[in-house]
């Protein structure tokens, strides 16, 4: 095996400062960033604009907010869009960047942005935060009373502008869900450079919150690999000095599983942070997310029901935030009006369901929690063993050997030897275990559950069962399509 050069260690400060300036020098607006002034500006922000404080306050007060997606190129329109969200009760507002900004094509963005202002049309599919720069983006932050989070890009322009989250860490999402050729080694190296910036600000009293996504399950698939990946993300961020983070929990549609995972993810992340000595890194809440395939654009009823399902699971689990898409998700970029109806529907559920304080105690939930916990622990034990105690070295070897693996990844370096299908109640089960170190008795549990479905359907579950299951939730069914709906 090749010698590992990356380990879970804090980056050198001189190197960090050099890399920060280099990153900002890629576009003229980078000159607007003065690091010390950025710290002072962040410190001047009211609590209602500081992401981690907003989340903690929501939790303490027993309330919740939608965490939506929103971005449009023209500043004035962006302010209007965000004010619309605020009016629908949203206090956690994203600044979703356009695709070209995410790819670093600022030159191209500049031309299109000028065209946007000339014609008044939104010709970019998001807010080009780098080209807009600090002064203009501060105007957005100061115009709407909410906390802001850059999505997809932003770097230190976002921080200097007063946005209070920072994307970084060993983001399995970037690598396993959006990249075609990046290796896990390249991810580990790149992410450490980035994440140290959040640590630099934290050292100066500015805490930027980060959401953990883990390795996104591309289709119905148990969340154990995803949660193990979130633990790796959390621990590697904490080493770089990150002080506030929270898990995004990808709801797959079976209520017992979704609610079990919402309970389990923060508990295990906390445990591993403590185990590695990062007791002062806080978990600011838990945010269930609407992740699997969305209903087709024409199915507006399905789109409403789907976002309300996730809102409901979040409300019953007493989360403080829920990551939701609008009913326009499959149709394109949402308008102010479709955002408003979508998030008012979610707020209706938050207020009506959450305030009933129903104690949910489902027997199946305890089983699901136990099963996933056993799986995550087995995976983490193997990761740490492979890295000889170093979590980054272990994660790299785990991915390379399929100890961490996921189906449906676009990345060609992923082994992709695992597969999931739903059981007779719609819960996600492993059909193919690949090289995941899952204990034999747990494997038997999955096999038994799949056998129940096979006997009901009268056919063996195979790859094409998994393909049909990709559609089930999106089409408003949970236990497979044919022959159940005949």
């Amino acid at each position, binding site marked *: 095996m090749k010698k590992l050069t990356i380990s879970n260690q804090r980056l050198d400060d001189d190197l960090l400062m050099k890399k920060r300036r280099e990153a900002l020098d890629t576009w003229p607006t980078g000159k607007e960033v003065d690091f010390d002034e950025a710290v002072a500006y962040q410190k001047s922000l009211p609590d209602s604009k500081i992401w981690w404080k907003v989340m903690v306050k929501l939790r303490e007060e027993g309330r919740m907010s939608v965490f939506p997606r929103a971005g449009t190129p023209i500043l004035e329109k962006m302010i209007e869009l965000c004010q619309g969200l605020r009016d629908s009760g949203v206090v956690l507002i994203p600044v979703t960047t356009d695709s070209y900004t995410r790819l670093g094509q600022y030159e191209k963005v500049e031309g299109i942005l000028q065209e946007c202002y000339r014609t008044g049309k939104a010709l970019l599919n998001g807010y080009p935060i780098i080209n807009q720069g600090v002064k203009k983006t501060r105007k957005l932050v100061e115009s709407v009373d909410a906390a802001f989070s850059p999505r997809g890009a932003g770097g230190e322009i976002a921080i200097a502008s007063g946005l209070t989250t920072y994307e970084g860490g060993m983001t399995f999402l970037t690598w396993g869900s959006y990249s075609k050729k990046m290796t896990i080694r390249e991810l580990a190296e790149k992410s450490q450079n980035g994440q140290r910036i959040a640590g630099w600000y934290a050292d100066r009293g500015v805490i930027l919150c980060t959401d953990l996504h883990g390795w996104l399950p591309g289709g119905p698939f148990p969340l154990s690999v995803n949660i193990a990946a979130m633990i790796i993300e959390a621990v590697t961020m904490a080493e770089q000095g990150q002080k506030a983070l929270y898990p995004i929990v990808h709801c797959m549609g079976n209520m017992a599983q979704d609610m079990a995972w919402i309970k389990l993810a923060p508990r295990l992340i906390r445990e591993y942070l403590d185990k590695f000595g990062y007791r002062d890194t806080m978990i600011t809440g838990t945010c269930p997310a609407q992740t699997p395939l969305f209903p087709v654009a024409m199915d507006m009823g399905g789109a409403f029901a789907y976002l309300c399902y996730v809102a409901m699971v979040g409300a019953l689990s007493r989360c403080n935030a829920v990551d939701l898409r609008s009913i326009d998700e499959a*149709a394109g970029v949402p308008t102010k009006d479709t955002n408003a109806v979508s998030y008012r529907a979610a707020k209706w559920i938050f207020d009506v369901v959450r305030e009933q304080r129903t104690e949910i105690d489902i027997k199946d939930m305890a089983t699901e929690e136990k099963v996933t916990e056993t799986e995550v622990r087995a995976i983490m034990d193997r990761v740490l063993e492979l890295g000889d105690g170093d979590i980054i070295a272990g994660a790299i070897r785990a991915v390379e050997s399929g100890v961490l693996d996921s189906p449906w*990844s676009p990345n060609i370096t992923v082994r992709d030897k695992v597969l999931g299908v739903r059981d007779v109640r719609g819960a996600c089960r492993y059909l193919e275990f690949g090289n995941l170190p899952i204990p034999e008795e747990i494997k038997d549990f999955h096999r038994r559950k799949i056998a129940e479905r096979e006997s009901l359907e009268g056919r063996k579950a195979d790859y094409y069962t998994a393909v049909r299951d990709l559609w089930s939730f999106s089409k408003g069914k949970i236990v497979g399509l044919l022959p159940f709906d005949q």
Partner: protein
Amino acid sequence: MKKTPTIITGTVGMDAHVIGTKVVSRALRDAGFKVVELGMQVTPEEFISAAQETNAAAILMTSLYGMAELDLKGFDEKRKEAGLGNVLLYIGGNLVIGRYDPKEIEPRFKKLGFDRVYPPGTDIQAVIETDLKPDLKARGKM
């Protein structure tokens, strides 16, 4: 199969939604075809050069993010120039932005040179039997 035709697959443009093309590729392989799987974010030029190099009988593209028409601007001319006028062309997925009737957009993609156009959620195994095999036979490619 008398001849084993080669089929090129991939998502066109900057689209990262890879599941569709993975499912298509696997189903083609299971049905006995030779598959050159280009994966996500494939440019029209890459489709053309892959088809030339492998003497492909068909190109099956997928797209979910609604911008396929922009990605395919000029594709028909380029593939004809490359001498690929007889290569069968299929496309499927969420092909335009907004709420639309898939039947309405079919003519737009046929104009771009596609022989068949499919809406989201199409059963690829059925397509292989009812459309692809007969189309290939009709062109003497299998």
